[in-house]
């Protein structure tokens, strides 16, 4: 699982942002109430808390063997940004 996604942070997040996101997630999923989620959050934090680890993650964490379906159609109902025109067509009453 992508640790950046788990923590809800950008790939270029700073140490402080990562720490803050980790604490926030831990407050949402404390170990006594949600041990599995907490484990996932802690693993994610461990993977990115150190700048060297983050760097290695950026360089080497490519899931080359993951199903193509999960790489290129990540969700059952993806919501793709299509720009304003198709939306305006509906408003025009086409």
């Amino acid at each position, binding site marked *: 699982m992508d640790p950046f996604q788990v923590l809800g942070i950008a790939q270029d997040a700073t140490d402080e942002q990562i720490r803050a996101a980790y604490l926030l997630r831990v407050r949402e999923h404390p170990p006594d109430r949600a041990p599995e989620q907490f484990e996932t959050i802690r693993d994610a934090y461990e993977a990115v808390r150190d700048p060297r680890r983050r*760097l290695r993650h950026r360089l080497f964490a490519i899931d080359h063997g993951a199903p193509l379906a999960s790489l*290129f*159609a990540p969700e059952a109902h993806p919501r793709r940004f299509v720009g304003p025109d*198709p939306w*305006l067509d*509906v408003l*025009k009453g086409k």
Partner: protein
Amino acid sequence: MIASGDHKAALEQAKDLHKVSGTLASEALLVDAYAERIRALLRRNLTIEAQSLLDMVRQRYPASRVRLAELTPRVEAKPLSLDDLVRPLNDPDLAAEQRTAIDRRLRQEVWDLKALAHCDALALDHELRKAAAALERALVAVTSGPVTDDALALPEVSRRSPLAPWKLLARAIASFYRRDDDACRRYLEAIDSESAPTRLVPAIKAMLADDAHAPLTPAAAALGARITSASTLRRALEALDEAFASASKNRILKAIRPAVDQCQQVSPEQLDSLRQHVSVRCALAVIDSQRVVGPLGGPSRHDATFLRLFARGLEETRNPDQVVLACRLWEDFRHAAVREGWFADNGPEAAALALHMADLLNQLPNDLLRDLQWSARAGTNEGGDKLTYLFQEELYRRACVLDPHPESFSQWMEWAARQPGNGAERVATAWHKIRPRDLDPILRLMNAAEARGALPTALGYLGKAERIDSLHLQVRGARLRLLAGNALRHLQQKKPALATEDLAQLSTLPDAQQGDRPAFLAALRLVSSAARGESERVAALRADVEQLLGSGPAAALLVSAVAAAAKQRAIARLGSVEDESERRSLPSAVARVAALAADMSLKLEIPASWMVEVAKQFPECRQTLDAAHLRRLGELAVWAGMDDLAYAISTAGLERGETTAARFLLLRANATIKSWERHIVCAKAAAVLGREQQDTALVDEAAALVRGFFEFEHVSLTLEQARDVLNQEKAAREPSTKGRPGPTYAALLANTCQCVSCRQARGEADEPFDDLDVDDDEDVDDDDDSGFGIPPGMPPELVEMFAAEIEKAVRRGESPEEFMARLSTLPPRRRRRKRRR
């Protein structure tokens, strides 16, 4: 008043009347007054005002629709432009009702915010134009990508603005893309059901799957299809995944085209990436790239992304040849990534890549890597490129130069320590120079200095280490050991005064008072006193040592070992043990001194007659020895070449429980060295059990024991198999004989699965004989089963001597491979004369 044309006054009067009476008649009168007012506006060509007023009356008095029916065609027949609609808003005296009517029409009909934002009928700074412009920007933003909450604040649009529903729409769309569906629904519910934005509500609800089967306009259906319809792509990709899993080349090739076509339609921006993934997977599935280009609709882009993907794919195969290729691709990736601006060539990323490549090279079989490096050097000598990616030393150096981090140096030093020569010391020196406050290189340099007998240098490094971390386990133990070594050295140099100073320092150390160490100090004092000729004190100290160890033979052995280390041969001689009770306790005495000698890094030489007596007495006292003493006694037996004693000790040790079982299994491996099959399996099982107990020293010792048995390098045992071996060895209490063969492990060594995936997982070629060149077959000597690699052409009379030397080397802890390397590569050493001052 109506008849006289004073319709304005008539309307005011009718309003007042209706306010007071509130009857159907008063309402009818009021509607008539309104109708006359609308007619008057139409007569004056004020169509917009007439239309606005008509709308207002119809909304406020629904019953009036019949009475006003006659006016409706007249008002709506005239099309209303946006400019015409909003122009009256420039009039500061515009009646409130008319303003309300215009606002209503803006709310209900205006869908083109851009047109309103650029509407020339209104002043440039009119709040309506500003609101429309802000909303238009927000809509473009929310439909084009993720937006922040700030972008949706829209302070230009007040809650009373006719465009207020657009603000809710923008927020609903933003929530939709954020997958905050509840918020999206709340915003949709809040949108005025008569406003223009409400036309989008069914489409969004359908996409939220709230009302998936609601009838939609063609535009709404098209919108939903564009935003959420990736299911066809998903199906095509799943079919391609299944094809790859089937490993059927034809099936893969057939499944590529539909996936690419769907991706092009639904997600064209991802097409390049898909092509790269498919190309890499086809390459890993050994499909000719030319056959893939057609279904892919073109070649994939070979940029940094592609190279990284390919490198990762290859290294995951664990096939040595492909791992080598992965190293090459990582090097190519580095160049490409620098070209594409991913990172700088001299940054931490390049350092991390170098470490990664070195790590991959470490996974390769030594002989393969040596061959590759030899070829690479030959190629470089002939003017070819320097293939740095094949040389760990170069890669580690690059990593440490680019990123002098302790982690990089540590990996380099660990690797160097596994190589022949003093590379680790060289790395530690470089590390210490760059990072003088790091403890690891100091300890490495201290240990290296100690190993070559440079004790003052070692003490110098120890001083540095103590200033950094005096509580470190290695640092605390080192001072005692080094001072003792220094005292022995001074005694060797016949400098008893200096040795006395060392002893004084030693006595002050708290560590020196632990366990049997006071006996060691007493023995050291004894030897020092003997060197100074203090015979009375020698006798007193001998009594002290004996008292401290509680055994005459133990005291004699310890004094002898210390005297031998101090080169005081006169008191190093050991007599035989005559007393019967002392003979019976000899195993425990020897074991106790062996443990103390190991603690103080003291070389212990046991006379053969003593070891024979130990072997004789051992069965009687095997229960009285603790596991630590058993271990030391076992090691002595191995060094003395007394396999039967080592075996008996391992049997006693294996009965002591699980915590030390792995250690005694390793001793069993040492005791069965003549039965190589059992020797290898016991060592491998000990390594597995040691790994489970996180005993790295044991794992290293076990690995060293089997190093060089190339044909069994790939053999690995599961934890279950290791436990099974342990149980079998526990049951085999006596050494094997012809009539009692003992456990056999041929199945574990021979029944290694030879399927492609298992061979790949073990890092072997796909087919069992792929590693062999055709020409090599001629060189295979069926009779050569020694596994030690006896040099071809060696005279038969030397073969036996050679095998015996190898066996001795193995007993010393050296692998046959290291022995061969030492034999063939070491230059003759020249003794360097010390310069006299």
